[in-house]
């Protein structure tokens, strides 16, 4: 199987061509403002490196931080109409509560609340007030709003009210992009609704971006299905990703962890990705990143996204070092490393200079750091090593020894030995681990529902069946699906032996020639 993986980062667009499990070619090109030009250039450079008869590929996977950046930087967001269904319950905390005011000012187009929704045991709170939904739909059209987020109380248990609202919206404001909260996930109305509203705000951008990706692909002459990578290390067809941009929020760290695991051939490890400004430390199990369990904030908004559990340190190759008293970071020269670091002829002392002075790497002009005091170099490198070792220790899944995979442009800062670590692996192509991670992504499906009056085994089997359906719809080949996560939590106080069951399955991409 031949795949191209592309990572569109803030600074660089990386592309790799994988033949089976071998990296055939890899390139790094600057990211452009319009994204498309950068991808076209990366694809050209990549294809130029292989003979014409080897330019056929089975799939192209793109990973991008575009959507997170839009939220974090408050740009390219569409105003959203929020429709909450659940009155008279949950009235005290309306949609957009606890959003940062600057973000709410951009995204909050209108707020409507209607009667409806369900109880935890599946009964109705009250019947859906269709007339109120219809009035809201007409007001949405009158206000010229084109994006709508609908969240009903306990919709993960019974989504019928959200679906009915979508039908009414389709009748009254045709063409509006409607996001339904139950399609995004878990129990926790506020967090699920937040995800839903962010998704609605990003749909325009997602459609434009995926179209740009498709055009870039067409311009490069490649004929292959286009996938977008998601937070959990899987991919989804670009057409489907355009409807759920929030699922692609954290694909950067995920791809780097997946790529590292793949390049090293080690599935269970701690991955340390040292860039110019930050070090991301994560944990992979069976080649997939461990997910964060709790609340994840995106641009100041609480969500319950499927996100990798990543510990970020303000420490990288460009991090500034003050000698007396010794202080390392958090400031970094960032992408100006190649102008400002001592070894590159600049006048700022960075972690890269320390590494060159300590003989950990040869870069630039080693003579520029000859006069650094040995004590300083030893103390500072010791401090950098100690910080990384502590982060690694914090991310370890248990007390057993586990390998560390070091990737990223400044991976030379990773200490060669750490307590509780069996070995530190350096891998080829580590600088393009992200793009490799995109190239090897699989298709996943997840289900998170409360089951009642069912045995544990029956509930898990049913959850698995539904998760597999979702994976197949997202483009997976059914016979390759495997369960990667099963979690069940009995729910306190609730009648009928309630069991919240979460199952995630992954599989290979279907439809290859």
């Amino acid at each position, binding site marked *: 199987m031949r795949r191209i993986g592309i990572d569109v980062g803030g600074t660089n667009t990386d592309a790799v061509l994988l033949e089976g499990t071998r990296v055939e070619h890899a390139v790094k090109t600057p990211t452009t403002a319009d994204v498309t030009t950068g991808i076209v250039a990366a694809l050209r450079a990549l294809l130029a490196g292989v003979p014409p008869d080897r330019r056929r590929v089975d799939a192209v996977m793109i990973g991008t931080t575009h959507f997170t950046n839009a939220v974090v930087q408050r740009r390219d967001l569409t105003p959203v109409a929020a429709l909450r269904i*659940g009155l*008279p*319950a*949950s*009235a*005290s*905390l309306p949609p957009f*509560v*606890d959003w940062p005011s600057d973000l709410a000012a951009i995204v909050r187009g209108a707020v409507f609340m209607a009667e409806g929704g369900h*109880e*935890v*045991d599946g*009964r109705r*709170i*009250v019947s859906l007030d269709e007339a109120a939904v219809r009035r809201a739909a007409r007001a949405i059209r009158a206000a010229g709003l084109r994006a709508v987020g609908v969240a009903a*109380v*306990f919709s993960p248990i019974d989504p019928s009210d959200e679906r009915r609202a979508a039908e009414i919206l389709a009748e009254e404001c045709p063409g509006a992009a409607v996001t339904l909260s139950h399609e995004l996930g878990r*129990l*926790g*109305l*506020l967090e699920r609704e937040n995800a839903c509203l962010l998704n609605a705000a990003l749909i325009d951008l997602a459609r434009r971006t995926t179209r740009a990706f498709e055009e870039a692909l067409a311009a490069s002459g490649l004929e292959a299905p286009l996938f977008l990578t998601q937070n959990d290390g899987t991919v989804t067809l670009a057409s489907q990703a355009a409807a759920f941009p929030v699922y692609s929020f954290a694909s950067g760290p995920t791809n780097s962890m997946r790529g590292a695991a793949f390049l090293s051939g080690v599935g269970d490890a701690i991955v340390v990705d040292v860039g110019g400004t930050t070090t991301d430390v994560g944990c992979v199990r069976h080649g997939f990143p*461990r997910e964060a*369990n*709790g609340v994840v904030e995106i641009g100041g908004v609480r969500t319950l996204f499927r996100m990798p559990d990543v510990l970020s340190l303000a420490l990288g190759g460009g991090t500034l070092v003050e000698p007396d008293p010794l202080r390392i970071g958090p400031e970094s020269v960032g992408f100006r490393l190649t102008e400002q670091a001592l070894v590159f002829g600049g006048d700022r002392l960075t972690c890269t200079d320390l590494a060159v002075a300590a003989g950990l790497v040869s870069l630039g002009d080693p003579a520029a750091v000859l006069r650094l005091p040995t004590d300083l170099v030893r103390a500072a490198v010791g401090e950098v090593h100690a910080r990384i070792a502590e982060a690694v220790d*914090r991310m370890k*899944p*248990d*007390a057993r020894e586990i390998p560390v995979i070091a990737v990223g442009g400044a991976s030379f800062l990773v200490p060669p030995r750490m307590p509780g670590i069996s070995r530190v692996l350096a891998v080829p192509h580590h600088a393009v681990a992200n793009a490799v991670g995109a190239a090897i992504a699989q298709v996943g499906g997840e289900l998170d529902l409360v089951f009642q009056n069912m045995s544990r085994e029956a509930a898990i089997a049913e959850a698995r069946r539904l998760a597999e359906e979702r994976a197949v719809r997202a483009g997976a080949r059914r016979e390759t699906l495997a369960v990667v996560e099963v979690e069940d*939590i*009995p*729910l*306190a*106080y*609730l*009648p009928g*032996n*309630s*069991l*919240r069951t979460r199952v995630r399955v992954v599989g290979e991409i279907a439809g290859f020639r």
Partner: protein
Amino acid sequence: MAEPSRPVSLEEIEQLAVGAWILGAGGGGSPYHGLLNMRRLYAGGAVVRLLDPAALADDDDVAVVSFMGAPLVTQERFKDPQAIARAVRMMEEYTGRQFRAVMAVEIGGGNGLAPFLAGAVLDLPVVDADAMGRAFPEAQMTSFAIMGLRCFPLTLADVRDNAVIVARAADWKWMERLSRKACTEVGSTAATCKAPRTGREVKEAAILYTTTKAIRLGAIVQAARRAHEDPVDAVLDAEGGRLLFRGKVQDVARRTTEGFLRGTARLEGLDEYAGQRFDLAFQNEWAVGWHDGEPRVMTPDLIGVMDTLTGEAIGTETLRYGQRVTVIALPAPDILLTPRGLELVGPRAFGYDLDFRSVFGPPA
């Protein structure tokens, strides 16, 4: 004597939310939504006053409020300040008496903020006291029950036009059964006003100044975080608590029996506890802890499991594999350590055949 009542700032409410979560001893649900409600009420001009219980007249009437139900349900059906205010008004109509103030039945978890929601809507002060000094799962686990006070009436309000009055109950356990049934019917979440208390009963049978204690605890955690100091140490210093174990969660087993979240967790030691093991058992709240198989801490001593790094309290529903946690014990209010107290809230009340032994030694 100090001023009988004083306004509580929004900053203190934020601190109360942090402190109440720690005093929840693993249960009581997260105070996050209560905090959001309070921010909105304060933004609308509300200011709640905190009343020194010593300032209560013996014949003042005090409303004892709480949200009853499953913490998970309130993740979808939010606690409603109007509903808790309605439960209080219902009680006034039923008894024909006006309340002088409101108070919490439990300071721990989300219910620590419940009287503030009611107080903001009804413009009543909140008494600086509660009836548990922490959180407990059942109605009979209060200082009022320990002191043998009357358990009825109880009013229960739903967000729909449903209202229930439990006019009488044979004892506190019957009150628990009857009200739990009604609560489950209306969706496993309801606003309740418990049996009203007189000023004298509050002064004699409540656990006093626990609101101030929770605010102080929250302030200490916030200050420690700002100063990049260890928030767990700060809590222990301030409350005379004891660090019992530091480790990493190795296993969590949860199951629902008789309407409660029960289960066990195993921690594997880190640092000076390397090679050792700590087991925890819970029924909504942490109940018993064993160090290398030996009982080390048990209810009613407050058992806290905190994120080792942030000092954030971790609930029995949110503890997960791999978390690095510190187990601490905080002293329980004296009344819970009396023979009658131990009967209602000691280890045997939770099904553990253990004689209560406090981490802090025998009661003075």
